[in-house]
């Protein structure tokens, strides 16, 4: 951008405003006691919901803990499973590859409601229904497509030339992966990880069906509040939701940078 057109900063400002305005509205709702239409600002304020959140009897700690552990676990497990799958899809060609690629995307197209009851039945038979492990497993279904898709493109862009080069220089397949491939896909994994966390955190139906009410995440608390019109409480928990997601994304970025030895992201010479 050599010439500073007046549009560029204007566009940026508009964009940021569009992003941040809803969050601002959310924050105002969290301290609003009464905000009838058409007032631009609440008629009455109250910090009651926030106080209640941080009070001793609040569900904050167990809900937060379960949400973060669940979503975090799903993220790590999805990434671990996505890497070898993505490597195969991104670098190899084999018969039936396009079918596999389509099947990988299936969970995105098929709504969770259609497979949640069936899954619950299966989990009952396996004895993992209404358990943390069961919900974790269930969350992999909507998350894996994203993980695999993103990392497939990462591998496709990376190619296998560098890993081949590492091998001829004396690296075993494990060494080549650890020292060459992993640092180079780390930024891609961070992006995927951030998305996976949010997808898992947002799951309601699966947690509801397969958790049987024993697994209570942020979404599980949030939806009833919204349904019942508890605007302020919903706003408080939504803010928490956003804060947790943002924090996790930042942590993933930090971890990826360290893994890639804090060099520039995604360099292809």
């Amino acid at each position: 951008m050599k010439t500073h057109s007046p549009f560029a900063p204007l566009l940026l400002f508009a964009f940021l405003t569009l992003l941040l305005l809803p969050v601002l509205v959310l924050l105002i709702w969290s301290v609003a006691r009464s905000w009838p239409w058409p007032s631009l600002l609440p008629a009455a304020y109250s910090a009651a919901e926030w106080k209640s959140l941080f009070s001793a009897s609040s569900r904050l700690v167990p809900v937060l803990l379960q949400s973060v552990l669940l979503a975090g676990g799903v993220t790590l497990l999805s990434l671990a499973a996505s890497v070898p799958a993505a490597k195969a899809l991104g670098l190899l060609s084999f018969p039936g590859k396009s079918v596999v690629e389509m099947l990988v995307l299936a969970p995105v197209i098929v709504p969770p409601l259609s497979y949640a009851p069936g899954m619950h039945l299966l989990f009952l038979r396996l004895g993992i229904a209404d358990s943390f492990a069961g919900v974790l497993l269930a969350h992999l279904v909507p998350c894996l497509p994203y993980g695999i898709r993103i990392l497939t493109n990462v591998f496709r862009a990376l190619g296998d030339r560098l890993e081949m080069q590492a091998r001829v220089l004396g690296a075993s397949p494990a060494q080549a992966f650890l020292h060459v491939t992993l640092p180079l896909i780390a930024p891609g994994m961070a992006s995927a990880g951030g998305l996976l966390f949010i997808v898992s955190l947002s799951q309601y139906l699966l947690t509801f069906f397969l958790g049987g009410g024993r697994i209570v995440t942020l979404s599980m608390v949030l939806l009833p509040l919204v349904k019942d019109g508890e605007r302020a409480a919903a706003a408080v928990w939504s803010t928490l939701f956003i804060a947790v997601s943002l924090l996790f994304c930042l942590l993933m970025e930090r971890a990826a940078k360290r893994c890639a030895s804090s060099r520039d992201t995604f360099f292809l010479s």
Partner: protein
Amino acid sequence: MANLELRNISKSFSSKRRNAPETVLSHVSLVVPDGKIFCLLGPSGIGKSTLLKIVCGLLVPEEGDVLFDGESVLRVPVERRGAVLVFQDASLFPHLTVEENIAFGLKMRGASRGEQRQVAAEMLSLVEMEECARKLPGEISGGQKQRVALARALAVRPRILLLDEPFSSLDARLRRSMRAFMRALQRKTGITTLLVTHDWEEALQDSDILGLLFDGKLLQTGAPEDVFSNPVSPRAADFFGVRNYFDVEVRDGTLSSPFGSAPADAPDGRYLGMLRPDQIALLPDAGGAGSVLSAEYGGERIFYDIVPSFSANGCGWSRFRVAASLEGRLREGEKVSMSARCDTIRLFPAESDRREPRETESSYARDTQSEVEV
């Protein structure tokens, strides 16, 4: 340091576009004596790179054997073979510094930090890149990248060095200096080297032994002078840009050609005669047998396309390419007479195939699919 031998190597790939698998290498056998440079010359395509990948173990041949010092290495995995491949684009690890790149192989072997540092320093001075030790690959030029790639390969003291068109991505001047650098380095270290290229002038200059690879088959191997002066077939001669063919008849130990007669040690019959551009002399001659079609200025020489009034029966060659000095420059349309020493005419069987070397499909399309089978 090792003697490299390839015996009867064959390899084919299944192509998605065709139903039949495509044969890329067909019964290729060659020997690279210890400490020598073998240059494999061939048109752009995948055969040459495939051969290198087979030697270092990234690909497995369908048939044949690879031997280092007389011992088969086919069962030895890539990382233990000791044959290092340097790719055309250097393939430096972008997340490591120059120094770390060079020390990589040693690190994989478990060498101590001290040893890594020491060898890296040695290699850096060998390739004259000491000031760039801490730089990242993104911060150095193409020529520098190639030097680092060479240093990285030599740091692990490989038994065989494999170079895949290592300098073809560099500009002409840099390419010349890098080639001289590589030759000097190879002489100094004495590493057995197999180099692959599509540039015949480079192949003639850089090799101890030259091999011609066409259509998956090794047409001819030998010392560069031998291969150049005595190509085994018109297709082999084609590698060096030779396309001057004409009818020759041999009777009773004498050949007769449009250029005259000479004693010939060949059985009676019809032959295809060949002369190189530098073997034909031109003189302006109003009654001459040829006329100048075009002139190509080449700096030190001029290449003329001459249309002869005679033509080899049925071969369709209507032009002769002649190299001449800058003196007495000829003009387009000028009539010339062509003369040559008839004892330098190379004879080939009359039915020899003189088609243009077939350009195989772009190697880029193949490179995007992994060919590694490890």
